[in-house]
């Protein structure tokens, strides 16, 4: 039977769902922004010359590193739940 504790709790964990939405927007949107910027830098670097090319490549690399960091953070959060 449904226990007292479960009947007292709200039917839907709206706070939890809102947190899921918030985290998804922040991390998903952040990842898309970073990858898009990285791709943009990489694409423009193909046509660039000299130091401009180096700067764009560095920008693309930086975006890739930050995305990898984001992924690592996500994995760390998941593992901390086990």
């Amino acid at each position: 039977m449904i226990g007292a504790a479960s009947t007292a709790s709200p039917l839907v964990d709206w706070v939890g769902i809102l947190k899921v939405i918030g985290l998804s927007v922040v991390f998903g949107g952040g990842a898309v922004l970073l990858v898009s910027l990285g791709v943009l830098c990489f694409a423009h670097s193909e046509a660039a010359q000299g130091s401009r090319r180096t700067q764009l490549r560095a920008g693309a690399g930086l975006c890739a590193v930050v995305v990898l960091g984001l992924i690592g953070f996500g994995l760390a959060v998941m593992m901390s739940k086990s």
Partner: protein
Amino acid sequence: MHQTPLLFVVVGTALAFDFTNGFHDTANAMATSIATGALKPRVAVALSSVLNLVGAFISLSVAAVIAKGIVDQGAVTLDVIFAGLVGAILWNLVTWLFGIPSSSSHALIGGVVGATMVHAGSGAVEWNGVFGKVLIPAVLSPFIAGAIAAFATWFALRLTRNAQANAKQQGFRWAQIGSASMVSLAHGTNDAQKTMGVITLALVANGSLAGSASTPTWVVLLCGLAIGLGTYLGGWRIIRTVGKGITELDTPQGFAAETSSAAVLLASTHMGIPLSTTQVCTGSVVGSGVGRWIPVRWSVFGEMLVAWGLTMPAAALVGAGAFSLESAIGGNAGVIVLGVLLAAAAAGIYARSRQAPVNPENVNDPWDPEVAIATPATLAA
């Protein structure tokens, strides 16, 4: 039947369900990568398989929710779990035959709820848990994922609109492989845990495990292997529907869809809210079409919505029927008859699918615009 032999039957059936969950849901992670050509079909399913196995070991928070929040554990017997699994497996196989990406989670929950209701009445079902923790979040999930994917797709395309096409495709191709890998990992984390939850529930019901105990390591390993193997065999019929049937996909779009799915699934795992991976990923694909402002085949999505709505009641009905049959026959004979019927139905569905096979060679064939859903008959035409 003595409880321990029945426990073996239940654990084996649960792993069979996990296997069907794997091939049913390969599309979630890899359909877009296969459709855009970011990965070759066999490479995609192999990568997804390994990541599903790894994902099974990452977190156990969803397993705990499934085991403890759906039905009163005191009312659950091994026979109930067995009948519930039969309902879930049959629904998974039928929807796979028709190429419909329905939720394995809902099928599982529906099957167990149906069998429990016959066994102990509706009072043994924790309806607050069913509606609040599972059903309502799952109903919302495709729309949440779809909205995020639509925005992400629009944003990615807008930001890179002046980028050189080849470099753009190449960059997003690698990003798509990365994001699809994250979805595979999240799928292993989310979905393998559901079977872990069922097996844990069976162990508790059999008295082999204390109610407060955590999921044993051997359960985690077996569930990871079963879902990984199922993923490797690849549910090509559903991959085709998701990758080619909903909308036309290119690499930025596929990347945005997979990233949105990964973000929603990982966030839900973190919060311990078990969302349907299938509905999240399908919603993201639909959203990516909307975000790119290209046609979405709403008739295909509409049929999926109907199937999603039917999943829990249909699995519950089969689960209830299976339990009634098993109880009516009784004892060892009941379990054996039910097992034989399940095997015969599975063999029949598989044989039917061979009449119009979908495989790595034809999975990316152009979608017939006159076809709403990839039925075996229309695929054969």
